[in-house]
Structures are given as C-alpha cells and as structure tokens.
C-alpha cells in the first residue's frame, strides 16, 4: 500500500490516538472530562485539541492544504498550551507524541526504500509544523507580555491625562 493511502486509512484513528496521548499528559481526574464531554463550548480544551489533531495529521500526511488553514487549526490549541503553565518544551513537545504513534502504524508498511523515504518526509513535515507552532507560541507569549504593559497603562489612563493637564510648576492637587 502506498504511504499516502496508509495515511488516509488511519485518518480517524491516529488523530484520536494523538488526542488521547495529549489528554494523558493531564492529571487523571481531568482526563475523564476531556475524553467524555463533546461540547465545543462546554469542553473547549478537548475541542481545541481535536481540531489541532485533524489539522496536524492532514498536514503531516501531505494532504492538499494551505499553510493558513494549518495555522488556523493549530491556533487555539497553541494559545491554550501557551498559558497553561507548561515549560515551552512541554507546551509544544506534545506534537512529537505523534511520532511513536505513526511509527507503530506505518512501520509494517515501510518495506521499500521508497516507502521509507515517503514516511521520513512526512516526519520531517511534522518537525517543520512544530517549528511553525513554536513561532505561534512565541507570538502568543509576546501578546501576553504586552497585555500586562497595556493594562498598567489603561488602568490609570484618565489619571495620567489629568496629571498631564497641569502646567509645569503648578501645584498638583490630589
């Protein structure tokens, strides 16, 4: 079987296994909720993970997809990982949980040098996607840092305007 066909064959199973692997990184009591509640608004964390799983897998498989679509599918998931108290490696390392899953499924199909080459190309795509996610992660962290600065400014904005309304040397009241 062609590697491309293999990827299509596992299009449901591998993303599901990857989401399970991601859920498994959370505490035991949390996993049950993530697994069982399928409501994009009542259980948004799971919804974000599932969306990322589909987008990630299709991109790794080399399906026809644009970079913007892949980025959009990963965006919420990366944003969530960026604020969940993970170290950067833990936040984004979850993408590499896909490798052992893929290897297990695809190794039996890599009997020819051509198949091995195709498979390794797919794995390389995963590496590139992880780097793209790292850029997204960093942008999110920058947004977070800027939000703290903006908030300090906005919190006293009117008082600052009031203070600036005094001419130099005049008595500042208050």
């Amino acid at each position, binding site marked *: 079987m062609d590697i491309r066909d293999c990827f299509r064959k596992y299009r449901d199973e591998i993303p599901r296994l990857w989401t399970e692997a991601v859920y498994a990184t959370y505490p035991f009591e949390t996993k049950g909720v993530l697994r069982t509640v399928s409501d994009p608004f009542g259980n948004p964390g799971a919804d974000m993970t599932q969306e990322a799983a589909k987008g990630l897998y299709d991109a790794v498989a080399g399906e026809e997809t644009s970079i913007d679509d892949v980025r959009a599918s990963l965006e919420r998931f990366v944003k969530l990982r960026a604020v969940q*108290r993970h170290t950067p490696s833990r936040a984004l390392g979850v993408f590499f949980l896909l490798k052992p899953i893929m290897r297990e499924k695809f190794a039996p199909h890599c009997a020819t040098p051509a198949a091995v080459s195709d498979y390794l190309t797919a794995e390389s795509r995963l590496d590139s996607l992880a780097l793209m996610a790292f850029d997204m992660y960093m942008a999110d962290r920058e947004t977070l840092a800027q939000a703290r600065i903006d908030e300090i400014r906005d919190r*006293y904005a009117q008082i600052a305007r009031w203070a600036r309304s005094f001419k130099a040397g005049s008595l500042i009241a208050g």
Partner: protein
Amino acid sequence: MAKLPTPQELIASRPPLSGESWLDVKPEFAPGSFCYPAKKETMELLHMPNPHEWDPTADDWGLPENWEQVLCDAFADRLEKHRSLKLFMDICVRCGACADKCHFFLGTNDPKNMPVLRAELLRSLYRRDHTMLGKILGKAAGARGWDTSVVKELFYYAYQCTECRRCSLFCPYGIDTAEITMIVRELLHEVGLGTHWIMDPVKNCSFTGNHLGIQPHSFVEIVEMLADDCETVTGIRPKTPFNKKNAEILFITPSGDVFADPGIYTFMGYLLLFHELDLDYTLSTYASEGGNFGSFTSFNMAKKLNAKMYAEAERLNVKWILGGECGHMWRVINQYMDTYNGPAPANMIPPVSPITGTAFANAASTKMVHIAEFTADLIHHNKLNLDPSRNDHIITTFHDSCNPARGLGMLDEPRYVLKAVCNNFVEMPENTIREQTFCCGAGSGLNTEEIMELRMRAGMPRGNALRYVQQKFGVNHMACVCAIDRATLPPLANYWAPGVTVSGLHELVANALVMEGEQKRTMDLRQEDLPGIEEDEPAAQEGGE
C-alpha cells in the same frame, strides 16, 4: 551516563503522573499563578488580624505561632454564624455535576479547580473536627488535619475562584461555592494572608471612598475632564453635579469608569444621557465607588464599605439611588445590603423613574435601580431619540457579567438596550450566556496584571465563545455591564479573538443618542472617526489630552 528523560516524560504536565491522590499533589507557587501579597502597613491601617510581610514563594509564610488554633476557631465561628456554610459542608454528595462547569478547571485542567474538589479542600478539614465519622475514621472518611501546606493550598485555590457561581447553577443542591471561597478568604485573613490587589483598594475605599484613593477635589476635576471630552464629541458640555443636596437621585458607579480605559467612555455615556434627560441627580465625592472589594475580603469589610451608599443618600437627602454598570456591586446590593446596612434611610422612597413614571417594584427594598433597567424603561417608553446607525460599523455581542446575571437576574434589560442602539447584534452560544455565562476569568479581585497568564487560561471558555461568533458572524465588538469586565475583557479578547473591542453598554447608548442641540457627530466617544461621515462638514472641535 545520565539518563535523559523520554519524550513522554519531558512533556508530562506534572511529572511523574504517579498514583498520587489529587489531594496530595501540592501547588507550586510559580510567578504568574498567584497575586502579590498585601502590604503589612495596609493590613495594619485596616486593623486586619496578624499583619505581616510574607512571600508566597517562600517556605515560611510567617504565620502566627498559634495559627492552627486561630484557623480552627475562626472556622468553628463561621460554621456557627452561617448555617449555609454548615449545610454546604454537609450536603455535597460529590455527584460531579459542577466538575466541568468552572472556567478555571476548563482552562487549567487542574482537578482542584473542579468546584467540588476546591470545596473539598475545606470540607476535608471540616470532617476532622466537626463530623463524627471524620473524628473516628480520619483519612478513611475523607478527613485531614491542618498543616502549613494546607494553608498554602487554600490560598492558592481560593484565589483561583472568581466567585462567579456558575457551578452553583448546576449543583442539584444549590451549593454556593462562591460563598465557600468567601469563607476561605475570610479564614486566611485571620492569619494575615491577603492580596495586594484587593487590600489596597479596600484601604483606599476606607480612607477616601474610591479604589485609587483619589481625593474629592481631584475626583471632581477628572470628571470635569470627561465632560470636556463629551463636549468635544457632541458640542454639548453635560452637567456634572456633585454633592447636591435634595437631588432626587444619587448616582453611584464603580470608580474604574472614572479612571480607566475603556471604562471612561461608559462614564461619558452616563453624563450625556443624564444631561439629555435633564435628570435631577447628583454624583458624590464620598460615595465615589460602587465597587466593593470588601466583598472579596470578609463579610464585615463588605458591610463597612457598603455603608457609604446609604450614609450618603441620607446626608444628601436623595429619594433613591441609581447604580452604574458594575458586577459585584450589584451582588452586594441585591443579596447583602439589606442585611448589612438596611433598612434604607427614612428619606428614601421606592424608586420611580421621573421621566416615565415607572415604579421599580423590584428595588422597593434596597431603593437602588440598575442603570440598564432605567435605560431599558426609557427606551420602552420611547423617551430617547436614538440613531442606531451610528453604531453600524460594529457587530456586537453581549457578555453577561456573572454577578448581574446570576446574582441579580438581570438578563434581558441590557439586551433590550443593546438592540435599540445597535443594528447588528449576535448572541454567543447558548451555554455561554445568560445564567450560564462564563466569567471573564478575573473577577473577585483577580483582575491584576501579575496573573495575566492565569487570567488568560481562566477566561479561555469566554474567549473561545467570543472567537466562535467572531469567525462565524463577523462579530467585532463585545458589550458588557461590569467595570471589571471592561478592564479584563480587552486583553482576553486580544488574546483569544484579536480584533474584538470591548465597551460598556452606555458608551454605545451615548453614541446612538441624538441630543437636543448637538453638533453633527463625526466621531464616537473615543474620538475615533465614525465611518461614512463626509469630510466636507465643519470638523468637530479638537480636544487635547
């Protein structure tokens, strides 16, 4: 050779994921996950018990020597005082209905942020000293004793609850986890543990009436500046009546609307609306704060800070109080004020709108009316000349603030107003609005910048719903009726749904309000150009900052 961790070990969120029980996993006080502690001098000025300097990241929090006795006595005292607390401790069957309803749990995936388990932190202590089974069987019956790590754990999780009460909506017994959080915070204050972001405003309110401690003359000047800005936009300078005796109405709103962006535009909206109505009202430099951070501290502190509302209503001899757009202010008014400081002074009467003659029967006891109700009544009686097309450049949704929604039951009035002043209104998904609304993630005194990261994960369910309507319906604006929301939703929206702006309801009302004698509006209250206005008209007077 040192053994490297496996990829799986490297990414586990809390390694090792052993068989450790959830109760035994202790929180890490990493920067970004806790609020800065209150200053010793602040606590001393407020006569809080056991004031001391301490550092949440340190091993030793400098608790008083007899801390355990203090906490046990205080807990017993609260159980005696609040039957509800005793009931909440006894009645939970751990059905888990609340487990996945908390925005903190959904955002952090930390089991102790499930409301049931957060309450269990206190309930386990309750079992040891106050239940027969707990006394006899101890840990086997889910009981545990106090130690310093338990105190730290209580602090960590009591300040990861915004007292929004979404969980209690789903509890078959109606357990109010918010009140459990309030009690835990009270207990922690007994040993001198509080946060700066809450206690500093409490101190300022105690001494000068508002959160930033702005003194009366300065407060007036700042409001005057906002009136100047109103004139720049509309050509009309609204009245700014302060401390006017015998006015019909006293207007009290959170001071964030006077000091902070974008709240100031909501305040400008109030000024313009009242001016247009020629309302006989007054602002107060004493009751210059509607918010009550005392309610995030202790019941007694909430009572003390709330007292100024009726005291000022009596001093100024007003008939009733109109309240601005605020969240927890309304929970305090609707649920606690009567007990704290009621009955209302004898000079006050059940509120009646002087414009429409509507009697606000729901406010007959407190004598306080929410401005969204007041304005909805005006619109219902066709008393306002509105041009909603001025807001046509926005497609807005509405965020139900937790306290007005679940604490006051005010769900339809703000929507009624919003639909009258905006032509484009879209609801967020059903299970994220009205009674089921998701918190902004930063209420109850958690709206401080040092925990921005925590706020972004706690606000994720709200941000996620907002992002959905942004992508599906092109929503580019979110209105709300809470000053904390106006401060906390802009960064949340910018993170989860960049491009969505946030405002109070009355900013949009004033933008749509056609005032008698106004100049042609070429800009909105933020002094941003209105789209589609021709440039050939005389430009509005430039206002300097």
